[in-house]
């Protein structure tokens, strides 16, 4: 009854109502099925044999089973493994990339000749000024502090 290649209807569990092929036999009660259902071991009691037997090799791979079922006008949904965050992040990253591509290249091409030399000049000028400014301030503060300390010492004495 449940020979290899037998078209079956699964009538129990969450895959109930889906069609499958017997790919291999495990023992008297169990067979390996594949098709619209998941590829899995299955009790014969949970299968309803249909009237067709496909000519297939023993232990056919899932992709080939899908091809065989297509000939019988039974379409198998392609299952995509999805991580809980996987597809979302891909979409988001794709959106970001497109946004970057749209935004980024335009200013580069337009402003490159004009903007670059200006940017290069500014950083050279700024740090020198800041360094010059910072140093005397610190010295002045230190001097003040030292003076204050000296005054305090003298007052204590």
């Amino acid at each position: 009854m449940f020979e290899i290649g037998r078209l079956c209807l699964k009538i129990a569990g969450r895959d109930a109502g889906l069609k499958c092929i017997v790919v291999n036999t495990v023992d008297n009660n169990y067979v390996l099925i594949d098709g619209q259902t998941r590829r899995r071991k299955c009790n014969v009691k949970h299968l309803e044999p249909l009237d067709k037997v496909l000519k297939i090799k023993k232990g056919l791979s899932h992709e080939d089973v899908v091809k065989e079922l297509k000939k019988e006008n039974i379409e198998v949904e392609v299952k995509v493994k999805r991580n809980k965050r996987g597809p979302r992040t891909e979409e988001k990253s794709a959106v970001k990339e497109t946004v970057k591509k749209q935004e980024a290249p335009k200013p580069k091409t337009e402003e490159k000749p004009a903007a670059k030399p200006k940017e290069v000049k500014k950083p050279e000028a700024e740090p020198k000024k800041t360094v010059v400014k910072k140093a005397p301030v610190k010295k002045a503060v230190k001097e003040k502090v030292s003076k204050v300390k000296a005054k305090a010492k003298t007052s204590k004495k």
Partner: protein
Amino acid sequence: MPAGRYKSRSMRRVYTKLPGSRVVIHYKKRKPSKAECAVCGDALKGVPRERPYKMQTMAKTKKRPSRPYGGFLCSKCMRAKLKEKNV
């Protein structure tokens, strides 16, 4: 004597024993009837019998079996229906 509103049997009576060995009656709301198969009328397995406020907090997977017609037909009637459709 119970309070007037508890004299009818619309509330369920629960006898609870207190630490001082005094027995007190608590009045609780009754649970809804069991879910039944739409074809044969048997009680459905895997469908909890709780008040709506508790059913609301439950996960969907805890409220009915995850198969076609789950929570509507019993497994036998579901099989019969699938066979009718496909064979």
